[in-house]
């Protein structure tokens, strides 16, 4: 296995071991989604159209993004609390790969979050969740999770320098959630918000998920509006393509930032501050 993958896997494995050692993960991954779904379904109860999936995915995305953002920030803070950040930085492997491994583990937990939402909506609230194309639906969900993780990586780099990542994670959770159109489609948001929405990978991922779910509305979905409802398959891949390009850009930005931030932390001596 190449060393980069080995480091990512090892960090992923260690994060999973920590998750398993700490049963509190049940709270953000099962109980919180239950509440999100309940709130979302209540909000959309009177709405007509394909809002069942919007409500459920909105709640799912909220939980997933919150989980990833919190965990990305926590990845650095956790190392600081344990007193291991210096030792990890002093190892010859790249800190970005270590945090990437943790982010992937967070993404996986984000996925359990989403699955929990779907199950709760279907079994407890009896929401009809007919998914048009289950394979593309799953694929777009996994890719969206990776995009969310990559976005989390950018924030994680900044958290190397902060004394308390929690302040930032609390502040960033709702803006990204709203701007990415997780619960309310971007088309319904004010026009000036659109540029910010379209540079977010998850915005395109959510559109792809909705198209694969077969409940996307052309007037509320960018590519579907451009290529037409009859070309939904093309619109799906255009969404996925744009998301992947943005995700790659996130990884490139995170790589650059991590290098800069690590050098700054080594110059200013901020690796141990907790």
């Amino acid at each position: 296995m190449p060393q980069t993958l080995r480091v990512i896997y090892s960090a992923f494995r260690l994060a999973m071991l920590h998750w398993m050692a700490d049963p509190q993960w049940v709270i953000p991954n099962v109980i919180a989604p239950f509440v999100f779904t309940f709130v979302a379904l209540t909000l959309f109860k009177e709405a007509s159209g394909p809002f069942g999936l919007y409500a459920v995915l909105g709640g799912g995305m909220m939980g997933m993004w919150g989980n990833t953002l919190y965990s990305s920030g926590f990845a650095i803070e956790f190392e600081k609390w344990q007193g291991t950040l210096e030792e990890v930085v002093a190892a010859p492997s790249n800190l970005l790969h270590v945090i990437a491994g943790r982010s992937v583990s967070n993404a996986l937990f984000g996925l359990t979050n989403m699955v929990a939402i779907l199950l709760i909506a279907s079994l407890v609230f009896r929401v009809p969740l007919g998914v048009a194309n289950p394979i593309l639906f799953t694929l777009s969900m996994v890719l969206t999770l990776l995009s969310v993780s990559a976005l989390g990586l950018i924030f994680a780099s900044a958290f190397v320098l902060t004394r308390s990542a929690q302040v930032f994670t609390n502040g960033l959770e709702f803006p990204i959630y709203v701007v990415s159109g997780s619960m309310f489609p971007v088309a319904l948001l004010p026009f000036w918000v659109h540029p910010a929405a379209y540079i977010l990978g998850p915005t395109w991922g959510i559109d792809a998920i909705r198209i694969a779910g077969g409940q996307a509305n052309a007037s509320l979905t960018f590519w579907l509006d451009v290529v037409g409802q009859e070309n939904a398959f093309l619109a799906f891949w255009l969404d996925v393509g744009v998301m992947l390009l943005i995700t790659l850009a996130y990884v490139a930005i995170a790589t650059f930032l991590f290098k800069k931030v690590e050098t700054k932390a080594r110059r200013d001596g901020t690796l141990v501050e907790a």
Partner: protein
Amino acid sequence: MVAVLELSSQQGQATSSDKAIVAEHLCKVFNVTKGFLRRKKTQVVAVKDVSFEVNYGELFGLVGPNGAGKTTTIKMLTTMLIQTSGKATVLGYDVQKDVTKVRERIGIVLGGERGLYTRVNAIDNMRYFADLYGVPVNIRDKRIKELLQFMGLWDRARDRVETYSKGMKQRLHLARGLINDPNIIFMDEPTIGLDPEIAKETRNMIRELVEKGKTVLLTTHYMFEADELCKRVAIIRNGEIVALDSPSGLKKYVMDTSVVEIEGFGITEKEVAQFKGVTDVLAVSADLSENKQVLKIQTPKGSEIISEVQEILKNSRIYDLKIKEPTLEDAYLRLVEGSVK
């Protein structure tokens, strides 16, 4: 010592450098910003000018009071901090330019209970760092087992680290620091907070590593530890090396003096301060925290000072008074107090 650790001390050397570590005029200044609206920048000099060399296979000690610059120096040498000026090489590699090469070849052991993943077991801690250091997979598990056996932790290797005692955690730190079979091991106060028996055990392990050809740079607060272990000791004060010699060489700095050691009760800080004003008293140290207080006075006057001691301590109880030969600790005290030129 386990087979996987039997490396030549010269292995991994980059150049023809005949020194394991070379520090030349290392300086580290931190910029500190205070205030919110009116931000005020100040500079804190942690290390002013530090130069020394460490030979291959040597156990070199860096001692000094809190805030003297020991840890900052070690962090610059281990690439965790970037120096403001000066130059340092480890195994011939520049610590600022050849960061990865230095990191691959060194081990770091920090003191204290932190620095471990306490929610997982010792094997998982070791395995994680083995992966970060790129230890070949075919020898990783064997090495982890041998290191944990060497440190006497194998029987508890599958227990969570949070259930370990301080001593066990310190041994795990040592094992972790050896996971990449380093040429040089940097140890920052490895016996801090340990009870005497465990500290002795840790010192024996350090000694064993050096016997096997490893180079060790050790920082410590404990002079007897430096005296017992180190071939050479550098004393650092206010970010500068004030003396560098063998323990016996350093003791020569205070050969002209005797140490009057008083054990008593009821000795106050005020009385200790009074001794500093007595003619020919070169250094005074006191441990007043315990029931049996200990006061040490360095003076060339020897027993002639007894009458003055009795006068100053007339309101305290004296249990014992001895005139002793100076130790490395006494030399250290004189050097850090600045009374030796």
